[in-house]
């Protein structure tokens, strides 16, 4: 086959691309995406906090919260795998890039999928700024 034939064949066939983001792309259901907690099930074993390779998760047993620093998460699925009670799940989405230095906090009593947005601890933000310089 030559490229001319291939070009003409492509011209007559349906395009392979989609007009993302106006159209949906198919994301596999097991795509490693955003980490979410179902706080009703958490037994405060802190395994996710201990095993997270980037230390993105902070478990606060007293305040009954799980906090994740989104920019630190590398979506390796370790926390989901170690969780003994299936508290943690991963939503199959592609993570959006962004500069936000935010932490998301999941607390007992919140509805499923709900979280509060906070700022990264000051010490860490300073550290990042120092590193930048």
């Amino acid at each position, binding site marked *: 086959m*030559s*490229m*001319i034939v*291939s*070009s*003409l064949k*492509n*011209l007559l*066939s349906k*395009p*392979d*691309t*989609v*007009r993302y983001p106006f159209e949906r792309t198919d994301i596999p259901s097991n795509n490693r995406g955003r980490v979410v907690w179902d706080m009703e099930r958490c037994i405060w074993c802190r395994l996710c906090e201990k095993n997270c390779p980037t230390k993105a998760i902070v478990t606060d047993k007293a305040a009954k919260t799980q906090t994740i620093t989104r920019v630190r998460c590398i979506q390796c699925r370790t926390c989901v795998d170690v969780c003994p009670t299936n508290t943690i799940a991963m939503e199959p989405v592609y993570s959006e890039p962004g500069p936000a230095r935010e932490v998301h906090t999941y607390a007992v009593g919140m509805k499923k999928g709900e979280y509060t947005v906070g700022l990264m601890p000051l010490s860490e933000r300073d550290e990042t700024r120092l590193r930048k310089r």
Partner: protein
Amino acid sequence: MTDAITGLAMLIAVPLLIGLLLGIDRRLTARMQNRVGPPLLQPFYDLWKLFGKERRAVNQAQVSFAAASVLLQFTAFAVFATGGDLLVAFFVSGAGNLALALGAFSSRSAYGQLGGQRELLQVLAYEPVLFLVIFILGWQNGSFLSDAFGENLLYLLPLALIAMVPVVLITMQKSPFDIATAHQEIVSGVYVEYSGTYLGLLKLGHWFELAFVFGIITLFFSADDIVISLLGKSLIVLVFVFLAVLIDNSTARTTRGDMVFKTLAFGLGLTIINLVLLWIDVSGAIW
């Protein structure tokens, strides 16, 4: 009087049509590559965006050359559209290309230098062919004035029309002959040191240049009925765009020596054969 009005209408309408043609070109290219491609009006959006950007130039000379390039190309097309002399239009358009090359040289950037040099080589490659085609058109027609073309020349000069293919490839900056604007080699060469409004100006100049070259192609066909005439002219142009896109999508870029040699051999060869055949049989009976 009517001539002046049609000329004026052409001056406004044709650049818009060229923009649309480039949109079709991009859409076709995308479909041949199995992509959806941009909206049809993308070239206009691009131009609009460039004109909306900050004005920054490397030096003053560069700005003057950009302005000169767009003005000369516009003049060339205006001469053509208002029924002027084709030879004048040809040389003015050539001067526009020269201004583009000089603008690239003035920036003192290594890529600009290479781009400018390659632009001159392109001029060397396609202008003799274009000149000969214009000459053969004028010779056959008996006049070099663009509004004096009323006769159908297609069956007399088919080889000269085919000789225009590499010329269109070069002016449309299509592979295998997109030497001066080679993105992956010299980072779009002549355009590399331009940005924003001035880049937009150069792009507009390129539209006028295309308008002139496609104008020459439309001279090959003419009919008594104005509708058939216009349809035939647009068809030839569309066929040329389709061919250019197809060739663009099935070849790699050649090198500069190759471009000069192939364009000259192919273009000059065909036009000269056509000329010789005409000369042997002046009555046109064998056609």
